């Protein structure tokens, strides 16, 4: 142990010695990665029940007794993939929801190709999402579904609920930005003067690699240096390495984002902040948040630097529903789904909240005990 009362250079020498040891450990990385490791993600069983263009709808059946009559539709963001919600068996939001007695559907947005560059937010919200909701309604013979959106998927769900309130029984949003005029998150700051037209003219769809680079840039100290040092430090710990690989697999598996969707999102949301002012339009139809009259549960992370609490919390005061609740968890943007503490809090709270509200409508949806085959 080196003391601070010693010369700083002794400390530095100690640091260098440690660096030497780190270097030795670094040399073992290739061999360690060559071991037989389990790093699969999204392993909870599901079936594909609907497909359209690049979109697939995954269906998960409850593990144990079904306690929530109305099926829950999960809408993930267009950035990264929905496998985040089912990263590993002991850290899976999907599994938590199924164990809580929910029947879950989840949209897999797939990989946009160049031909998808003209798809707008309207095509996603009033097109794909609406057709998926219609499919679930028909399949279960029910008037409404429970809707849950994550990140941009949550913003899309807010738009959907405002435009189609008659089809949504309960709305859950998680780290979903609606108030973009804040300087708390770096993304909000950087996007203000971002030349999105130039980028789209040059690239078409926004490349996943570009987005990955942008996210790494947000915090190079933690995401580029500390993360990999921790990995090397724990290279002998097989469960740690497997979890690390799962996260790596997810985080760098970034599909491109359709160009026109990205353009509209940056301009209407980040630059003009139209959504929270009830001024945003999809295909000429204005999104009025006061039309969200169903119960709303809004989650966000206290330490979320991508979508800070200031971008999420204002939703509740802008909607028409009297049954709205903000839930701030002591975690970050990703931690809300993967941290062990959030695992105990996040999914159980959703299923509890849903069953409290779903019970009131149970009588009406008795015939929706399961999907029709």
């Amino acid at each position, binding site marked *: *142990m*080196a*003391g*601070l*009362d*010693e*010369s*700083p*250079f002794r*400390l*530095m020498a*100690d*640091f260098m010695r*440690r660096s030497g040891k780190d270097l030795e450990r670094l040399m073992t990385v290739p061999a360690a990665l060559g071991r037989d490791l389990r790093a699969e993600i999204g392993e909870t069983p599901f079936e594909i029940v609907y497909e359209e263009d690049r979109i697939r709808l995954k269906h998960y059946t409850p593990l144990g007794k079904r306690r929530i009559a109305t099926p829950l539709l999960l809408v993930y963001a267009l950035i990264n993939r929905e496998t985040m919600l089912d990263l590993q068996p002991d850290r899976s939001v999907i599994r938590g929801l199924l164990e809580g007695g929910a029947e879950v559907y989840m949209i897999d947005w797939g990989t946009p190709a*160049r*031909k998808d*560059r*003209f*798809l707008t937010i309207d095509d996603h919200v009033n*097109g794909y999402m609406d057709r998926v909701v219609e499919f679930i309604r028909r399949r279960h013979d029910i008037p409404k579904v429970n809707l849950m959106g994550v990140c941009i998927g949550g913003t899309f769900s807010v738009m959907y609920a405002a435009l189609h309130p008659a089809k949504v029984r309960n709305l859950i949003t998680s780290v979903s930005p609606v108030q973009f005029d804040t300087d708390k998150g*770096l993304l909000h*700051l*950087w996007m203000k*003067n*971002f*030349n999105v037209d*130039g*980028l789209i*003219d*040059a*690239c*078409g769809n926004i490349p996943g690699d570009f987005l990955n680079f942008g996210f790494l840039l*947000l*915090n*190079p*100290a*933690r995401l580029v*240096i*500390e993360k990999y*040092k921790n990995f090397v430090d724990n290279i002998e710990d097989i469960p740690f390495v497997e979890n690390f690989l799962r996260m790596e697999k997810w985080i760098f598996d970034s599909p491109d984002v359709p160009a026109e969707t990205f353009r509209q999102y940056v301009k209407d949301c980040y630059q003009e902040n139209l959504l929270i002012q009830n001024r945003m339009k999809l295909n000429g139809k204005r999104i009025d948040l006061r039309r969200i009259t169903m119960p709303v549960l809004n989650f966000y992370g206290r330490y979320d630097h991508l979508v800070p609490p200031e971008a999420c919390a204002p939703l509740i005061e802008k909607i028409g529903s009297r049954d709205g609740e903000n839930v701030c968890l002591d975690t970050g943007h990703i931690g809300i789904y993967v941290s062990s503490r959030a695992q105990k809090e996040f999914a159980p709270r959703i299923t509890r909240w849903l069953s409290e509200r779903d019970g009131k409508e149970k009588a009406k949806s008795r015939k929706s005990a399961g999907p029709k085959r």
Partner: protein
Amino acid sequence: MGEKQTRAGKKKETVTDDAAQQMMREVGDLWSRFFQEQMASFGQTVSSGAARSFFTEAGKSEFRNRWQNFIREEMARCFQVNPIGPLRQYQEKTIHFVRAFAEWEAACTEFCILMNRPMEASFLDVEEKIRRESRTGGSKIPGKDLFSLWIDALERRYMDLYRSEEFMTALGKTLNAGTSVTKAREGLMEDVLKSLHMPTPRDMDELYREIHLLRKRVETLEAQRKGSHGRTR
């Protein structure tokens, strides 16, 4: 006429040769000065026995200016020939690409230098903290915590940088320069694809747009048809 062409050809060759030689000299000189500066800085660090910023701001600034000057002026100078003749548009596109590339290279250099600043500042922060604690006889800390100290300092410094006007300007400039290079490259690629009788990305995009609009029209018509059927029933 033939003689004139030969003369012009010779003159052009001389211009290119001169420019190329000057370019080589400039690169050699630049690296030699950079190396000398760094060795001097290193020598100073060793002789003073004090940890300090290895790459001095003044040296860096001069290096940066000269490097950007080289990229913008010397490199682009090789292509500063007014294009003429039936192939002029290809030449023009090539020159446009080279200039865009030079701008992008310069913007990237500036951006990288800016991104390196928190690194240096964080080392100095850690050094300062150790000195301060050492003077006041502070409590003992394990050497391994130096890494955490440094990472915390680095994160702080990056956050400060990211909120500065200077960073946002550099980021915008780099992105814009990057998109210009991509577009200029696409211009060149289009010519190649056309010569091979292959569709260009622009051709494909036009088709995709048409299909997209047609699909939307079909959807609207189908919805209208459904609506009118419902009413008649």
